């Protein structure tokens, strides 16, 4: 593990902070989605920056592999599934600053 890669600021969130931006990691997942859905349905993908690192049986396994390679850095985990519909949640304060509304 390279200690220089241990940038832990990303861990700290304030109660009013908006959602974490994962647009780069999400784009990387979308590029590989067809292959992942075909070969690893139901598993967890680990994405670091622009790279899909691999698919794992559970979230902890994915995280520990990412930690071993890169340290405690911003990574994204994603359940590999298709279709992947949005979740419905009924009890939400959508006016809270931590919530980002979509147009």
């Amino acid at each position, binding site marked *: 593990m390279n200690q220089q890669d241990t940038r832990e600021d990303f861990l700290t969130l304030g109660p009013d902070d908006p959602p974490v931006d*994962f647009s780069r990691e999400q784009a990387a997942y979308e590029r590989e989605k067809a292959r992942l859905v075909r070969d690893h349905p139901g598993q967890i993908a680990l994405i670091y920056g622009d790279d899909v690192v691999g698919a794992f049986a559970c979230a902890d396994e994915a995280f520990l592999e990412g930690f071993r390679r890169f340290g405690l850095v911003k990574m994204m985990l994603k359940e590999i599934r298709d279709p992947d519909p949005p979740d419905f949640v009924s009890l939400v304060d959508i006016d809270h600053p931590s919530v980002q509304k979509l147009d």
Partner: protein
Amino acid sequence: MGKYVAAAHDHLTVPARVLQTQGQEQAFRLLGRPVPDPVPVRLIIDTGSGRSTLVPSVIDALLPALRRASRIETSLAAVVTTLFWVRLEFPGTRLATIPEHAVARLPLPPLLHSFQGVIGRDLLRRWESLLFEGRRGRFTLRDSPGWLRMWFRG
């Protein structure tokens, strides 16, 4: 086999403790960082929600690193939030610990400020049953089949 029986008041609630997953605790220890203390919470069972949630203050106290972006639909708007994998324990019940589960970081409406999150159908699916007995004024959660059902199954 674990179960939890409680009175059904205005809300069906379950006491829980939220922790980092074991993998993340292991990473923190390797780095010499203090592992955040478990956070006690009271969760509302909401069969209308497809995703379980925790309020931002609970998530923020745990510093969870296992994350992804998530699109959530509500009755009023579509929103973006972050999903975090956490461990859930249920002290005071006989429900087994859930080692990792992805919950959305979402604030509850102000009228529900005494609660810290929602148990949605994603979590209920991991358990055997939720039984609501209206006239008896109680509900029962089981995380695995009861002994009678196991006996019938042979």
